[in-house]
């Protein structure tokens, strides 16, 4: 016994293993239900550690609600913490919007940690559990959780349709703000080909629901002088390697539509501020938005598109004079697409189809860079990428050239 007491690390390991495993086991259907794991290969304490990384602690309150809250934040609209801030210049044409008393939770602390910055952790597959057949599990687990969320979602969507959008409508924006899927579907189809007259209706007037659709023209680099690019690591790459030094970039590696309004990731005058603060501080004429790959594997497509369209709506309100480009999610290379149960082109195409529906060809335009970076099969061309996810630094000019064909004047 005395000998055993001298083995302190052994005792620490055994005690910690048992304690955390109990915590993980008890929480496996509540707190940690969205972490897929297979007990044959993974100890029960693993979700506990993964939870700590995500800010879910074994002692967190109402843990089982966490994931629902996350999605609901976006479905509740203005009342939710992701709702709109009433900037003075914006609120005039709207009844006093909700003042943001409930302080958007700053998950910045978490994302700011070293790990959050280290970039593309694709190596983890080979580094760690490369031979763990958990991939299969992951899929089934995710599917299960997807179903779970699916049950609650339709109801929330209805609620959304009733409460979220009309509250904007009341502000006088008419049907356009709501963008019912049916109506847009038609509008999007003709988006690129439709040779609509280019007159617009003078200024881009969000209130002018009757404005005629606009079409794309070729532009030069100065077009991006008053443009802002918002997005994830792909947009970070565009910032680093496009040579578009005249444009503004608010982008961050790992950014998702769920945290883009809460994380302070926009660098303005050497300070990190939230996107909302940044967009209130400066008005742009063009907003380029590309996001949506990090969200795969989290929540449902419906939940994603709700959060996405809320974000677009918010961009419109923060930048009332801007043309908003919703960019298709860039696809991944064949090797990745064929082997990954989550990050594959089928899933990307599914999301892109929904994003395309948000365009109205008046203030919101859908552009798809995949037209110029993919092979006929629709996979990101191998010679353009090393990691199957991102363009090589020297290939971002393809994207830039593409953007230059999509000017709206």
């Amino acid at each position, binding site marked *: 016994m005395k000998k055993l007491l001298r083995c302190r690390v052994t005792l620490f390991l055994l005690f910690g293993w048992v304690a955390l495993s109990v915590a993980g086991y008890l929480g496996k259907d509540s707190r940690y239900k969205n972490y897929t794991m297979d007990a*044959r290969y993974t100890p029960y304490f693993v979700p506990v550690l993964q939870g700590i990384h995500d800010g879910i602690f074994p002692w967190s309150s109402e843990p089982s609600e966490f994931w629902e809250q996350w999605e609901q934040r976006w479905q509740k609209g203005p009342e939710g913490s992701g709702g709109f801030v009433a900037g003075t210049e914006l609120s005039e044409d709207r009844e006093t919007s909700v003042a943001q008393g409930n302080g958007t939770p700053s998950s910045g602390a978490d994302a700011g940690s070293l790990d959050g910055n280290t970039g593309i952790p694709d190596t983890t*597959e080979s580094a760690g559990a490369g*031979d763990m057949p958990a991939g299969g599990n992951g899929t089934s687990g995710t599917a299960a959780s997807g179903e779970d969320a699916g049950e609650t979602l339709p109801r929330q969507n209805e609620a959304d349709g009733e409460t979220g959008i009309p509250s904007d409508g009341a502000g006088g924006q008419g049907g356009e703000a709501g963008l019912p899927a049916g109506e847009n579907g038609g509008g999007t189809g003709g988006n690129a080909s439709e040779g609509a007259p280019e007159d617009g209706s003078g200024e881009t007037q969000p209130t002018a629901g009757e404005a005629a659709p606009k079409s794309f023209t070729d532009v030069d680099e100065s077009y991006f002088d008053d443009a802002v690019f918002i997005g994830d690591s792909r947009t970070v790459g565009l910032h680093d390697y496009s040579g578009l030094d005249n444009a503004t970039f608010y982008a961050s590696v790992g950014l998702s539509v769920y945290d883009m309004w809460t994380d302070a990731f926009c660098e303005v005058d050497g300070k990190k501020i939230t996107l909302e603060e940044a967009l209130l501080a400066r008005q742009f004429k063009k907003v380029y938005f590309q996001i949506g790959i990090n969200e795969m594997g989290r929540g449902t497509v419906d939940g994603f598109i709700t959060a996405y369209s809320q974000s677009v709506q918010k961009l419109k309100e923060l930048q009332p004079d801007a043309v908003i480009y919703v960019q298709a999610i860039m696809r991944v290379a064949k090797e990745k697409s064929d082997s990954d149960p989550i990050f594959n082109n089928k899933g990307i195409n599914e999301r892109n189809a929904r994003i395309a529906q948000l365009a109205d060809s008046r203030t919101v335009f859908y552009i798809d860079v995949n037209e110029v970076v993919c092979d006929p099969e629709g996979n990101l061309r191998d010679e353009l990428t090393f990691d199957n996810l991102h363009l090589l630094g020297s290939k971002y000019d393809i994207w830039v050239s593409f953007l230059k064909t999509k000017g709206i004047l």
Partner: protein
Amino acid sequence: MVFSSFEFLFRFLPVFLFFYYTAPKNWKNFILFAGSIVFYTAGEAEYVLLLFVCVLVNYLFGRFMYVNIDEGRGVKQTVLLTLALCYDFGVLFYFKYSGLAGRLPLGISFYTFQIAAYIIDVYRGKVPAEKSFIRLGTYLTMFPQLIAGPIINYLTVRVSLKNRAVTLAQFEEGLRTLILGLGAKVIIADRIGLLWNNIQSIGFESISPQLAWMGAFAYSLELYFDFAGYSMMAMGLGRMLGFEIPVNFRHPYASRSVSEFWRRWHITLGKWFREYVYIPLGGNRRGKGRTFINLAVVWSLTALWHGADCNFLIWGASLLVLLGLEKLFLLRFLEKSRILGHVYLLFVVPLTWVAFAVTDIGQLGVYFTRLFPFFGETAAMVNRLDYVKYMNSYWPLFLLGAVFSTPYPVRIYEAVKKKWAGTIAVALILVLDLYYLAISTNNPFMYFNF
């Protein structure tokens, strides 16, 4: 099944250790042999038979080589040795270099060298042929060192194979070594390796010279902490089972010449080449010219052992040139100053590792023109300030890597390991190990950061 996986650490290992510790003494080798076969099968079911046959063939050749212990070395022994080596290296050649086999069987480079050393030692009469098939099998397949070394000489574990003590204190010591080795891999190597990955994703033609140098250092640190960490885990596991597995790395980046570096990097491989190639060829006792030829042979083989691609030959050749220059005059020059040697080493070794890392010759050329931009311009869309961005996120890992490349942390640990400070340090590293392992484990919610 790699050591740095939950499957190994918290599933295979506890179950195996339970059987291993509860088994009676004379069953332990069998349990270890069987456990190792299970371990190997989990990673490489296809070629487990090949491993088994390797043990059997060499067991039989060893047994037939000497019927009596006082039988001298004759034609029979030489023929048997030749046949055994032809089999061992033939299999290695077939899988690694002929291009006929699809995939390299796991660990074959390591276990081939280990069994070849055994059969040569038997031929030389340094050790008697192992009488027990189980014992020889245990030696060769022992899972702590089966897949990535260290390469253990039969002689060093011969006594332990027959009789070894397994105590609680040894378990604790082994566990600590395992935790520290795991830390080297998951806390430093895997994370600093992401920078190298980033650089590849950007494309070599688009990185600034500063980032190119950061990449060379990052890769050097990744390689070291990955491999040394793995060797440490092997030592720790060996200790838990009652074996003394030799040290494979002695802070090589603290060396002051490439010659010294290679005496401190992958020590067991260096020893193997020394003992079974360099010395038999005459070593350095036959004049300068012959010494150089011997070195050339050793380094060509070392390069080939690491891989069959062309860049490994460039890598081996660059080391050969450096070692030759050092032997001729550089060493005397470097010894004049303490600092100079360190600077020289930290300048040239990362360059050799770049040649080791980049298998495409064209790309290797691009990388070198980025390191030395005055040699020629291959740049396309370079972001001049990219290094600032990456330095901002990677400097803690560079610092950590630099500190743990020196011998000082180990010295401090040795001084306090019996005290609470040592326990707390190891416990803390254990927590970090598991945390980083958990968040990098195959998990659809975790590995998204695009």
